[in-house]
């Protein structure tokens, strides 16, 4: 039966995250962006919300179940607070969720306890590559079988928290078969080197790194899912759905701020929101945000049903890429000169929002 009402548990989660976003994330977002330093305390508090442990099924030692719908509801609220901090808190999911979905019994047993700890789990994933023509279906990072082991070569970019990570899930392509697989790589493995921290247009509070894999030799047990491997298409869809949800969160942050600003900013004797030119911009923003949110929900719902959601996720993500740019740009525009000043959050949302068209694999539900 068609319904657009989250469950009671989901609504409780939304409310909890919204409080965290408003009271904690928003307070530190500006300084974290300016200093490019992650706000450690807020990240810790965010981790304590238990988003990842509750997505790990009970039979695997976790406290809940994997639900893409719950995941996108949480992702939107987190991103509404601040995208960089949200991605920071959710970075371990880039590693944990694929292990939940495709890990062998041994991999799950060995790796998942890390995500059930009090402290932030030092795990991440390396997916994006520093290229103009990036294509997730044609990764340039390769793996080759060498007897019982695998050898990985290539350069990854935008690897969040790679420096501090203990484990990195590396996506690589079999040059011969064209198949993409994921490999569990320990940070200290020989041949793996951090090239540099990425300097980005936005997301400053989230340390992202360029990571080089130079003949990194791995045992057969490092391949996620063993001989069966992963369902790459499903992981791509899950990632796109999550990113689109975060785009909705960023857009909503900008929209709500601009809406409230326009109602109190008086020019020519009345609030600027009473001009159709401004009011219509806001109406447009509201419609587009709602539309993309529904597309995200539909994709997540299909994922939870175990159906092929590739098309829905792709449409939602590509729509979200455009939408978040338009909305956050309007957010800056409505604030006028103040929109351009870094003291106000609108320009940060535009910088962060601009990235979505360039992101893949930086979020997971």
């Amino acid at each position, binding site marked *: 039966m*068609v319904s657009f009402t989250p469950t009671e548990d989901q609504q409780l989660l939304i409310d909890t995250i919204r409080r965290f976003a408003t009271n904690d994330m928003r307070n530190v977002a500006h300084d974290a962006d300016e200093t490019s330093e992650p706000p450690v305390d807020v990240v810790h508090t965010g981790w304590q919300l238990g988003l990842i442990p509750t997505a790990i099924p009970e039979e695997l030692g976790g406290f809940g179940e994997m639900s893409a719908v719950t995941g996108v509801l949480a992702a939107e609220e987190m991103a509404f607070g601040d995208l960089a901090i949200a991605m920071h808190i959710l970075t371990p999911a880039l590693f944990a969720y694929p292990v939940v979905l495709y890990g062998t019994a041994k991999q799950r047993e060995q790796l998942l306890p890390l995500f059930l700890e009090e402290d932030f789990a030092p795990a991440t994933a390396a997916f994006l590559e520093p290229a103009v023509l*990036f294509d997730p279906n044609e990764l340039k990072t390769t793996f080759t079988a060498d007897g019982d082991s695998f050898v990985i070569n290539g350069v990854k970019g935008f690897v969040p928290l790679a420096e501090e990570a203990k484990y990195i899930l590396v996506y690589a392509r079999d040059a011969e078969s064209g198949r993409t697989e994921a490999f569990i790589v320990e940070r200290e493995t020989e041949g793996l080197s951090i090239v540099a921290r990425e300097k980005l247009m936005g997301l400053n509070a989230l340390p992202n790194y360029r990571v080089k894999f130079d003949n990194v030799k791995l045992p057969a047990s490092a391949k996620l899912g063993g001989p069966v491997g992963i369902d790459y298409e499903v992981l791509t869809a899950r990632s796109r759905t999550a990113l689109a949800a975060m785009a909705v969160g960023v857009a909503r942050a900008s929209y709500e701020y601009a809406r409230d600003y326009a109602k109190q900013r008086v020019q020519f004797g009345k609030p600027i929101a009473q001009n*159709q030119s401004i009011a219509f911009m806001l*109406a447009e923003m509201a419609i*587009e945000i709602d539309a993309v949110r*529904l597309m995200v929900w539909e994709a997540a719902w299909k994922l939870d049903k175990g159906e092929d959601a*590739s098309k829905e996720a792709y449409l939602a993500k590509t729509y979200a890429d455009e939408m978040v740019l338009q909305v956050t740009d309007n957010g800056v525009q409505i604030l006028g000169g103040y929109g351009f000043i870094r003291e106000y959050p609108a320009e940060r949302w535009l910088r962060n929002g601009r990235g979505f068209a360039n992101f893949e694999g930086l979020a997971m539900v």
Partner: protein
Amino acid sequence: MAIDFEIPEHLLQQAQMAKFLAESTMRPFSRELDENEHQRPTAFIEQMWPFMKELSKQAIKQAQKQLSGESSETSNGGGKPKRERHDNLGLMLMVEILSWGDAGIYLCVPWGGLGGAAIQAVGTPEQKIRFLSRFAEGDEPAWGAMAITEPGAGSDNSSIATTAVFDEETNEWVLNGEKIFITNGKLALEESNGLVVVWATVDKNAGRAGIKSFIVEAGTPGVSIGKVEKKHGIRASDTVSIVFNNARIPADNILGSPEVQKPGNKGFKGAMATFDASRPFVAASAIGIGRAALEFVKEKLTEEGIEIPYGAPRHKLTALQRDVLEMERQLKAAYLLTLRSIVMLDQGTPNPLEASMAKVKAGRAVTWITQKAVEILGPMGYTREWLVEKWMRDGKINDIYEGTGQINTLIVARRILGYTRRELA
């Protein structure tokens, strides 16, 4: 409750039947009825009449229950779980598919239409039974229509100049004025025993509070069809003007209270509320046309060896593939916004914001999608050999009637900003 997009199985089956109807009684006649404006889609009307009669019967049954004191709301009480209602969802899917078939022909569906919807929304049980029976019985189909627009009153319906004066001697309302752009007005008044719901003012000085709606039945002296419009699209559906020249109707043909200042007056607000209910269906119709165009374009491109590579990065898309993907995105966005506003109707949740959002999005989406479709198909897209150019002409009306995209954007803006119509004019 949980977030869920599952359409109930029986509605999907119903939609499948509607698709068969669209393929057999609509598509084959699309071109002919477009070229011969004012001709009637008889095959479609004959097929639809028995089905629509059943729908109207249910409305009357409910009214009869209300009359006998057994309200449809309370009959679900007593601890029995409330049955889930999908009336509007079912209707939405039907409207979408019939508009996929042909939007002009779809408008000729024999039922109470907007007029019937207004009666159902604000009429007394007696009025419902008295006026809606014609849509539920008999061998001959009947149509209902709604007359609001005037030469001087479009979106600004508070400046309606048609008057209704009460004649105490005869206990009748006397209507005078001219209404324009009335869908099915001719079918309702001249070609069937139908009716038109007419908005008129009982007190010009009272502004919106003075506007009431009246039920004018076919055969009423002093009522005549004026101009039959020649249109850009939806030509299978006639749009007419109606002239009221001392047209007399019984006292109880008024919907809601005749009093101008009465707290809780359902008259104007009730009639306006029918828009919250009808706008999602205009959006649904828009989506049907948009889907027809998108499907056709993809079909023709496949014949030319061009597929849409879902999942491909930007640099691997041709400009044309990118356009088609954008058509899909816009259509899906419009569909989901519409679905939401419809589900709210079924749940009995007020949806004026969501209805206008859906209407804005769908009206613009169908306009853009069908224009793109003509463009993508090259010289052939422009020919009348194919229906794409017609869909483009048909689609445009959805951005105009039941409130233009602009007036609906204004409604959205007022709602999100919490402004009255005075604060945001």
